[in-house]
């Protein structure tokens, strides 16, 4: 049965479409973290911010019956948190990874605190909303193979892919991309050239925070229809892994996110079929599904081990910058 399903053509198309769909949350998170890291800041607050974004979008949508207001509220929360984070990361700078842990813990607590406060402690009854539905793009969706894979996705997904293309162009061809890169690589040089290191980092961290919060919101108002406990389930940490695997380059990060969307889709499919391990071509080698879960983390360490000399990481990452006035 397994074999028959794996080779069926429809199954492959459905898997490809599901991979991109499931990757959407990771795309926003990875884009946000990449942008932040390119400016020289490591934001470990990403996991907590995604949880906060998921909660904000859900409660706003639940209260107003408007998904759009849910998205707007998420963006506002992203801006507010981003400004606080950029002030801390930019001005204080030292121990930014420890500050990130503080943000994650506090935002995790805050998100579940507010959710419990709003809905009460009623265990058992789960509040739900009507989530976003995928949008079929006319004509394009009729293209064989590519149509059902690429053009029957959520609006969130289209926007995410467009954003990646935009940032790829920004980093490659525009002065803004150059400014962020210089600030991330050598803030002192940037400062000498008359670029405001602080302002650049404020913009990068705040924009990054908006994307992180949006990544969380996709889960609660599109992929799922509720704010489940553990809804983000480590996607923020995976995004940090994906930025490393993507070598801090936008398009590589996008493909890394889609690849892990695929791994996730495959793993979910195997679990749904009740297959806890796969036997490779009848050999004695079996792959437990936990390996798929651990793959992004394992690959990150391997990437750092093998490619650390060649990695294009922003050289000033984690280094605080102070003007010597």
């Amino acid at each position, binding site marked *: 049965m397994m074999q028959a399903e794996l080779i069926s053509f429809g199954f492959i198309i459905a898997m490809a479409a599901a991979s991109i769909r499931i990757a959407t949350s990771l795309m926003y998170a990875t884009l946000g973290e990449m942008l932040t890291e390119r400016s020289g800041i490591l934001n470990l607050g990403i996991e907590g911010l995604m949880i906060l974004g998921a909660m904000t979008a859900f409660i706003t949508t639940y209260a107003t019956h408007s998904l759009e207001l849910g998205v707007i509220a998420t963006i506002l929360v992203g801006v507010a948190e981003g400004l606080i984070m950029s002030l801390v990361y930019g001005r204080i700078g030292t121990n930014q990874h420890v500050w990130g842990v503080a943000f994650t*813990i506090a935002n*995790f*607590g805050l998100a579940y605190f507010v959710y*419990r406060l709003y809905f009460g*402690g009623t265990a058992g009854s789960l509040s739900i909303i009507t989530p976003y539905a995928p949008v079929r793009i006319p004509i394009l969706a009729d293209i064989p193979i590519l149509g059902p894979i690429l053009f029957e996705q959520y609006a969130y997904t289209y926007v995410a892919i467009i954003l990646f293309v935009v940032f790829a162009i920004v980093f490659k061809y525009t002065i803004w991309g150059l400014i962020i890169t210089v600030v991330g690589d050598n803030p002192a040089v940037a400062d000498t050239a008359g670029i405001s290191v602080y302002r650049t980092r404020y913009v990068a961290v705040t924009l990054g925070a908006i994307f992180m919060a949006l990544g969380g919101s996709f889960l609660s108002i599109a992929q799922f229809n509720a704010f489940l406990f*553990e809804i983000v389930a480590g996607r923020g940490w995976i995004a940090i892994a994906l930025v490393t695997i993507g070598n801090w380059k936008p398009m590589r990060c996008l493909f890394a996110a889609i690849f892990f969307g695929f791994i996730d889709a495959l793993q979910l499919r195997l679990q749904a079929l009740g297959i806890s391990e796969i036997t490779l071509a009848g050999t004695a080698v079996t792959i437990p599904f*936990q390996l798929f879960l651990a793959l992004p983390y394992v690959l990150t360490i391997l990437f750092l081990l093998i490619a650390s000399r060649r990695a294009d990481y922003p050289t000033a990452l984690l280094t605080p910058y102070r003007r010597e006035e």
Partner: protein
Amino acid sequence: MLRRALLPVRALVATFLVGAIPVMAAGANPLTAYYLMAAGSLGDMIAITEVFVRAAPLMMTGLAIAVAFRAKFWNIGAEGQLYAGAILGTLVAVNFPELPFWIHIPFMIVAGMIGGALCALPGILKIKLKVGDVVTTLMLNFIMVIFTSYLVQNVLKDPFTRWPQSPPITESATYPILIPFTRFHLGIVIALFFALVVGYGLIEYTALGYEIKAVGSNEIASRLAGINPTALTIKTAIISGSFAGLAGIGEVAGIRHHLIATLSPVPIGYGLTGVVIAVMSGLSPLWVVVVAFLFSIIINGSQTMSRLTGVPIFLGEIFQGLALGFSLLFLFLDQYRIRRVR
């Protein structure tokens, strides 16, 4: 010196002041809520022993991180090292039933400490890549939890139950209960010994402790003084990881008596809380003990407080985040404080 000692007190006061906002938003009186928090965790003898039970792993992860951060080894992976220690320790503890306890328990402890140390070692990627230690130790947290979940569902699964857990550890590897009818086990005394004697002694009275402090206070000067940063990072990773591994042993041998994939709370586990404790303690082993008890009281007391006031239990996590944030803020402000030099 006095400033550093006051850090936990100042951070705590600020946390309780700002923490009053969510309590009031939930319609409760902050003073009542804080009183119930203390009463719930210190109200009777059983509750007090439970504070010790919770404080033991917090002390060990806090100590692990304090030692690491002192040497600027940014270990965010105490959670993973806790599980690595638990895995190797369990392997020793479920086997060798014929060993007398006075050999079996030390054997298990050593295995657990080796497990934790091994799990911290990849953090030495720091030497090549600036963010190497942060990212690798962070990633290993998830790898170890997933690996534990794999083990208890497959190769290490107890064949006699359907639960995802290892077979029970043998009698001879179980930490004895020291106060009858409570969960106050030998591991608590071991944790206190490690924090107060081993951790403190290491930092204050050994050459290695001197080197760790030297790197922590001035990296360039320490290099000029001939301290080899690579060797020091490796030594620190081993020590830090082995402390966190001991926390895992305590949970298996003292409380659960099986290996399970949920030894530590989710998603803010003992590893992350250890970061809060270490930083709030000003990275001092003695203060780590005090602050670990403090958070044990807050975490245990939150349950009673929540039940009686209706304030959501997640107040405990908000407090952890605030405490870490305020500690970092005060540390930063202290650097820029104007001091009178006599």
